[in-house]
């Protein structure tokens, strides 16, 4: 080692070596950060082509669909992470559990309707109209319950800690997460809890390029995309949306512009949790069972999606969700399913190292 250093010093003019290093240190991360989206897209296309050549284009297309479908659920959860982070810079670790709890709400409301004489488990699969009626009933009520849960958590656990050092609300969030998991474990048991929504959505909707797309996939993807566009329009266009963006950018200035900060933050929690609630409802229909500890894994993957997209950025969270879904599915075919978690969290580390602002982090205007 010592020998090499001497050689380098002898060859290079004095002062050259450190300057080169400095240059490299400054330029390399910048270049990687700039090129990151291109590298990512290239990697995805490469993975797709690799699957297409080994297993055929239809399988690759199906895997893409699988990735987008699971990614849609990650995206719906990631929105809540990113909105809350945007406005109070808190990683709300309880958010994944709000998702799980909402899935149980979706199940319980179905049973509740039964109590009032409306049997959704037979009405929904009976006809398209019955299904739509059930969805029209379940979507608002599940999202409302999820939203209220989020608001209550903020009110009880986070509001008082808003001026505390960052670590305090973070640890509280972990605590709330454990609390919710404990409640769900005690109430619904350890095993997968049947959602009793089998046959609600079935059959193939259409075939695109040899890839059969089922109505189930259509439901999940359209819910995610629809809600994401609605959210984006809301945040950009509405008064409350402006208040959320203003609060995210400068809380004191927002306060003195007449914005009720508490209400704005509560609304943020409401909307974020309601979106997770919508995700939970489609999850319970798609997978037909829910387990108490589901939120841990889904939550942490959705968080990764939010970081990938640029935490605080709404469009980024949606994009990140879909990307993480596709990356995990492609990766688990190419490297083996046991690598799925490793791939997702390696992604998190790569993003934090090379592009900590995330894919769309530069475009802060969408932040709320």
């Amino acid at each position, binding site marked *: 080692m010592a020998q090499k250093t001497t050689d380098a010093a002898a060859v290079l003019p004095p002062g050259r070596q450190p300057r080169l290093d400095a240059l490299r240190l400054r330029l390399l991360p910048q270049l990687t950060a700039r090129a990151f989206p291109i590298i990512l897209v290239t990697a995805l296309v490469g993975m797709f082509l690799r699957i297409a050549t080994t297993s055929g284009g239809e399988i690759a297309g199906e895997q893409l669909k699988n990735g987008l479908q699971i990614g849609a659920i990650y995206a719906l959860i990631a929105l809540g992470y990113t909105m809350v982070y945007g406005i109070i810079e808190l990683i709300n670790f309880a958010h994944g559990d709000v998702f799980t709890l909402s899935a149980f709400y979706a199940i319980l409301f179905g049973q509740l309707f039964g109590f009032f004489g409306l049997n959704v488990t037979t009405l929904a699969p009976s006809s398209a109209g019955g299904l739509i009626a059930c969805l029209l009933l379940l979507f608002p009520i599940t999202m409302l319950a999820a939203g209220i849960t989020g608001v209550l958590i903020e009110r009880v656990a986070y509001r008082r800690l808003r001026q505390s050092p960052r670590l305090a609300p973070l640890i509280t969030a972990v605590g709330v997460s454990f609390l919710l998991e404990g409640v769900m474990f005690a109430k619904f048991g350890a095993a997968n809890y049947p959602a009793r929504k089998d046959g609600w959505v079935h059959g193939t909707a259409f075939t695109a390029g040899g890839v059969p797309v089922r109505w189930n996939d259509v439901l999940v993807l359209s819910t995610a995309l629809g809600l994401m566009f609605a959210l984006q329009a*809301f945040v950009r266009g509405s*008064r409350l949306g*402006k208040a959320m963006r*203003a609060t995210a950018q400068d809380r004191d200035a927002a306060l*003195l*512009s007449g914005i009720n900060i508490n209400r704005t933050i509560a*609304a943020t929690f409401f909307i974020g949790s309601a979106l997770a609630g919508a995700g939970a409802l489609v999850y319970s229909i798609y997978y037909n069972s829910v387990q108490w500890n589901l939120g841990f894994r889904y939550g942490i993957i959705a968080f990764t999606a939010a970081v990938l997209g640029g935490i605080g950025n709404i469009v980024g969270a949606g994009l990140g969700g879909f990307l993480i879904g596709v990356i995990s599915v492609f990766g688990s075919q190419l490297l083996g399913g046991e690598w799925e978690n490793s791939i997702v969290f390696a992604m998190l580390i790569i993003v934090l190292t090379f592009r900590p602002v995330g894919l769309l982090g530069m475009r*802060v205007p969408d932040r709320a």
Partner: protein
Amino acid sequence: MSLLEIDHISKRFGGLLAVNDVTFDVGDGEIVSMIGPNGAGKTTAFNCITGLYPVTSGDVRFDGVSIVGLPPHRITALGITRTFQNIRLFSFMTAVDNVMVGEHSRMHAKVWDAILRTPKARREERAVEGHALTILSGLGLERYADMYARNLPYGFQRRLEIARALASGPRLLLLDEPAAGLNPQEKNELMGVISHLRDEGLTIFLIEHDMRVVMEISDRIVVLDYGEKIAEGSPAEVRNNPRVIEAYLGSGATTQMHTARSTPLRPANPADDEGERPA
């Protein structure tokens, strides 16, 4: 009649008495300036008035009603708004959106209306946007309505901050060093804007370091030093007050007040940021 009454207020941060038993009034339709060396407690006093800090003791009355203990957004709704020493616009929102945020406290649609985007909320939204554009044109900012606040020239950012403050329809406007960082031309324009606003019936209370601006536009001046009020009166009275001269220039100084202090180019010096956040 007094619009704002500051009644023996004190503010303590731990061992530091930032504002010490200060009393003064701001009359309806007046332009009142508050001056004092760095660290005199001026911004802290502002923060106490706008509800950002709770006062340690004393009372603040607005239009005869105590506003101590009210949350900032309620105080804004009563008719007090402010600008900041170091511009605090929502830099990634357009100019018109910034003003619309300022109108927040005047809107009546509830959170639910906003989430569900009811016709009521939409109607209100359109009306507010029209009003915001009117305010922008009133301050000569209509050209910049759709630009991000961060892309506006510095002088216009100052004006946009005033526009945002005006949006909530205040009766009392608090300006924290509005001339900081402006060139002489922009300062003249600013003074024109302030006078114009007073003519329209607004009461203005400002903190300012630039003595030319202060002396030219103020009806009365309040001087703070080490958290205490050391003088109050017309510009001429204050200019010749020996305690004021001493506070600014140290003992033995003479009457060169109006040239005594050059305005810093930018309010970047953290020492200017008195009491921004208690440690």
